[in-house]
């Protein structure tokens, strides 16, 4: 049989279904048949999954029968456990119908232990699993036998996996698989991405690295390299990629995108507010859409928005249509029930968050509605693809803006989708904390030779530029914590034997590794339990008996005081207090408004790409006739009262209002970068004696308010603004702020958990007593003072650059606006500034120090004493 053509029984099977094998399926079969790896980029509904499995099914069907167990042939990795289970079910049909002698099994966190043991002893032909399970498998003592004959690995939804630390972990697992089975071919399945070459590199072993990976001090690991702790920490430098030799890449197979999506802006004809994300005015129109379609997915950006939308839709649900709610805080069993009802076609709509961005194909979805700003072009395309999984028919979707700015963002997204432009993120640099976890895992699998392990690790694309010194620092960290004081050598986790090989110290450490594997660090959560009021005793509650509604973040529960009302699981709840590890709540009376916003505004920051399009749209009045009239009028008014922000520069407005002075700026870089900017700006204004009082930020701009006249300060001192927005704020000011930043501490905690410094708290595990509770904030403060170049601090900085603080993006912006700042002193607030001013009071206000809160509480004591 010529390579790449289908065997007869496969041809027959396709024919029996009324199908013909598609060209990309045959192409993939040919590439893998030649022993090469491949990336398949295809839109939803192109038969991607079958294409990925076809080479393995053909190869397995042609094997001579054997009685001996033959080891694992194909491994399939999916980002979602549910997807792995679903794919297994879908594979059963062709295997059964063609009578192929192939055994398929899944392995997830839910697989019982006896089955796991059996899977190692007598592996199936095809195993479907997740990145975390792969990490556990390669750390198993039997890993080299298990994977010795592995022929193919299929990575599904690769575009979604590679953008996170999970992708780093998976890349290291893949590198190990390539070593255990040198003839392994890897197949990546992906939606359309901006840089397919990044994914092509990811799939195959890379060649040698030239430059160090993480900026700053090497750490070396020698005891004599004790850094004096009074020395300032190395500045946060963004890692740069070294000059790369032409790297190995997998073959590329692209399926040209099927039918263009049928995409619209939902225009209700009503005037939209200038801020807010709820889109309350659009609910009747959305309800009409639900009535007119079979099944509708209503995507929103935050859980709060999901709760709100769900409530609003039910308020007007006169036909009692089955509309359900799905988000990450809901109880898992409740989510499973919703998914099952959806699969069974019992629901007309689901209001959901990113939890349903990926996953199981539901053929019946015929409309997607996206409420709020789309935030990114690729994200919106992924969501639109959830409607209708047949590629030849257009997916139908509506974008629903929540405010006038979001109209601009929706228009920019429509343009981007039409141009099929992508804004998927750049390839990641592998995270050091993930590497530390992996190194311990490799010691659990077998004794390792550091040189050999290093070569293996740099063959993984995210780690291709890792220097030997940085690798040594990681090994040193795993062994003894990597501290300048070598205090912990007696207790080392991995030990180097006289043969030069590193081994895990004992079974207990290996057990610890297994309990803590993975890169997803859930923030600590508490259950929300419905408590029952006591009849005739208002305020009194029975602590037990009610059902569990779901979970809320512990950080959020921490800020609640009894009596606070908040929106959760589709109802308004009244917080009654904490009992052990549960938050007790009662149903608030009808008509109660939730007082406390339970989740931050927009979860995803506006992508750089969409931001640029929005800026261009605003700057070019000739484009405005494509916009709804209310937006064009609004921009016109801005041009009359002030000026329009340019496509490249930065518009800064200053004006007095209500006895205070305001400064607003519009960088359009997303709320994370703006929050960081706000923190740094207020520090500088403090020094300039402008007496800043606080600031608010949204995706488009920030507003800072103060007691001194900022317009006058700018007029008096030329260069004042340029100085204020100078790039060097990312130096000392950033360092000083990071000291106190709670976001930095949260980032550090996640790195500390991934790298095994502190253990995960497992569900059901109770908080330990005060003597053992170790707050990572204390650890962070101490480490920062005494060893600022420690591996975990470097890991946290690397995350901060792109993650919660978005320092990288802020840096690019500050560079871009140099010499391009336009200032307009106004005597009243401008139309543009209104939008960000409206955030004040809606979101948390920053700049309020701990001491201000304490002073206020103290004042209450005085009142008590006097009253």
């Amino acid at each position, binding site marked *: 049989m010529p390579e790449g053509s289908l065997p007869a029984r496969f041809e027959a099977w396709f024919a029996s279904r009324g199908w013909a094998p598609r060209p990309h399926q045959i192409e993939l079969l040919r590439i893998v048949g030649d022993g090469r790896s491949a990336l398949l980029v295809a839109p939803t509904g192109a038969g991607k999954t079958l294409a990925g499995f076809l080479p393995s099914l053909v190869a397995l069907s042609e094997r001579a029968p054997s009685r001996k167990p033959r080891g694992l042939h194909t491994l399939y990795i999916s980002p979602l456990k549910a997807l792995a289970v679903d794919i297994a079910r879908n594979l059963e049909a062709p295997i059964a119908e063609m009578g192929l002698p192939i055994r398929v099994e899944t392995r997830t966190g839910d697989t019982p232990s006896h089955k796991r043991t059996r899977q190692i002893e007598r592996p199936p032909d095809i195993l479907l699993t997740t990145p975390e399970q792969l990490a556990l498998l390669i750390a198993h003592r039997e890993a080299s036998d298990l994977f010795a004959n592995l022929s193919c690995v299929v990575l599904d939804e690769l575009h979604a996996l590679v953008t996170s630390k999970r992708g780093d972990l998976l890349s290291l697992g893949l590198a190990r698989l390539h070593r255990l089975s040198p003839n392994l071919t890897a197949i990546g399945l992906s939606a359309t991405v901006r840089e397919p070459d990044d994914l092509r590199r990811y799939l195959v072993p890379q060649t040698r690295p030239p430059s160090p990976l993480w900026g700053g001090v090497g750490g070396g690991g020698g005891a004599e390299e004790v850094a*004096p*702790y*009074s020395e300032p920490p190395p500045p946060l430098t963004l890692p740069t990629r070294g000059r790369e030799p032409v790297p190995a890449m997998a073959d590329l197979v692209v399926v040209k995108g099927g039918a263009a999506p049928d995409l619209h802006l939902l225009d209700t004809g009503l005037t939209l507010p200038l801020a807010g994300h709820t889109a309350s005015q659009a609910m009747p129109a959305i309800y009409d859409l639900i009535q007119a379609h079979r099944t509708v997915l209503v995507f929103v950006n935050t859980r709060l928005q999901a709760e709100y939308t769900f409530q609003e839709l039910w308020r007007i649900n006169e036909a009692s249509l089955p509309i359900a709610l799905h988000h990450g805080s809901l109880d898992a069993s409740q989510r499973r029930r919703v998914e099952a009802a959806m699969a069974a076609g019992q629901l007309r709509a689901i209001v959901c968050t990113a939890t349903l961005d990926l996953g199981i194909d539901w053929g019946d979805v015929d409309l997607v509605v996206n409420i709020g700003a789309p935030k990114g072009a690729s994200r919106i395309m992924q969501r639109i693809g959830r409607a209708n999984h047949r590629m030849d028919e257009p997916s139908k979707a509506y974008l629903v803006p929540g405010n006038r700015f979001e109209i601009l963002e929706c228009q920019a997204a429509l343009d981007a989708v039409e141009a099929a432009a992508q804004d998927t993120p750049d390839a990641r640099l592998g995270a050091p904390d993930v590497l530390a976890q992996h190194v311990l895992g490799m010691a659990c699998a077998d004794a390792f030779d550091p040189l050999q392990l290093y070569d293996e690790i740099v063959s993984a694309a995210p780690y291709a530029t890792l220097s030997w010194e940085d690798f040594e620092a990681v090994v040193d960290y795993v062994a*003894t*914590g990597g*501290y300048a*004081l070598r*205090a*912990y050598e*007696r*207790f080392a*986790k991995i030990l180097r034997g006289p043969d030069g090989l590193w081994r895990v*110290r004992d079974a*207990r*450490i290996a057990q*610890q590794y297994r309990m803590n594997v993975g890169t997803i660090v859930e923030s600590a959560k508490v259950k929300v339990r419905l408590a029952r009021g006591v009849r005739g005793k208002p305020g009194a509650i029975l602590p037990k008996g009610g059902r569990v509604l779901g979970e809320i973040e512990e950080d959020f529960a*921490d*800020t*609640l*005081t009894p009596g606070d009302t908040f929106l959760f699981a589709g109802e308004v709840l009244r917080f009654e*207090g*904490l009992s052990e590890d549960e938050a007790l709540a009662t149903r608030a009376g009808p008509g109660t408004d939730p007082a*406390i*916003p339970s989740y931050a505004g927009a979860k995803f920051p506006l992508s750089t790409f969409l931001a640029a399009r929005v800026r261009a749209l605003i700057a070019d009045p000739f484009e405005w006739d494509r916009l709804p009239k209310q937006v064009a009028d609004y921009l016109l008014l801005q041009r009359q009262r002030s000026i329009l922000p340019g496509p490249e520069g930065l518009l800064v407005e200053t004006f007095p209002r209500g006895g205070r002075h305001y400064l607003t700026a519009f960088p359009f870089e997303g709320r994370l970068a703006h929050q960081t900017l706000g923190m740094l700006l207020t520090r500088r204004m403090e020094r300039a004696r402008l007496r800043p009082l606080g600031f608010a930020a949204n995706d488009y701009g920030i507003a800072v308010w103060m007691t001194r006249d900022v317009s006058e300060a700018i007029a008096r001192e030329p260069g004042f603004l340029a100085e204020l927005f100078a790039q060097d704020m990312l130096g000392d000011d950033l360092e000083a702020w990071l000291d106190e930043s709670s976001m930095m501490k949260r980032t550090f905690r996640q790195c500390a958990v991934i790298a095994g*410094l*502190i*253990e995960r708290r497992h569900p059901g595990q109770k908080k330990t007593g*005060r*003597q*053992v*509770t*170790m*707050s990572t904030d*204390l*650890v962070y*403060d*101490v*480490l920062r*003072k*005494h*060893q600022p170049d*420690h591996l975990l601090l470097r890991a946290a900085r690397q995350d901060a650059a792109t993650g919660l603080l978005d320092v990288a993006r802020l840096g690019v912006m500050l560079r871009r606006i140099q010499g391009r700042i336009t200032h307009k002193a106004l005597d009243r607030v401008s139309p543009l500034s209104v939008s960000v001013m409206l955030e004040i009071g809606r979101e*948390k206000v920053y700049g*309020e*120090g*701990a*001491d201000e*809160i*304490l*002073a*206020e*509480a*103290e004042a*209450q*004591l005085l009142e*008590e004493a006097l009253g």
Partner: protein
Amino acid sequence: MTRPFPELEDAILALGQKLERTIKTPGLTLAGEALTLDLCGGLWLAAHRTLIVSDLHLEKGSAFAARSGQFLPPYDTRETLACLHEAVARFDPACVVALGDSFHDARGPERMEPGDRAMIAALQEGRDWVWIAGNHDHAVSEGVGGRYAETLALGGLTLRHEPAPDAPNGEIAGHLHPCGKVAMRGRAVRRRCFVTDGKRLVMPAFGAYAGGLNVRNPAFDPLFPAGFTAHLLGDGRVFAIGKAMLARD
């Protein structure tokens, strides 16, 4: 003058600058004795020229490494001693009382770095130093200087590690690591604190890694049956906050 611990002195200098921002240190009276609640978490008895610190939990980091293989940064002892050095330099006490649980466990002194050990010796020079027995370090091994006591009487005050519910007025104790939490307008601030009802006083933990127990925990109820005021250690000063304003965890 030689600088035996140059790196420590730098850290102390930085701390000192931070403390300069202190507006005033509040005072209160317990059993007729005037007490100064210091922002560092120590208690200053000017009439006796005595500084009291509680629950240093030295070598807690290394205790974790020894017991569970969790490598918390081993700098907690150094950090705690630097804070203590700063307070000693400021008050120049004739006597320092460490109110129990000075070491996280009985083997703590063995694990201590030589530099840290020398630091303690330097602090003790020229002054009386009393280690009160705690539940973690009841039998502290030799080699850390000073003298040992179960309890200590000072004027009308009784100093002991674990508060006794039936103690007469004037007890100063530690052990509970009190923390107070204030939650307001979507923000929560949780800080170590002194707790007192004018009859007894429970001190905050001084150690860098010492955790905290919320003062609204029932453990405090038998000690303060008629309520209490918590004095929270803020960034710039100590804040007196009534029980009613303090949130549970």
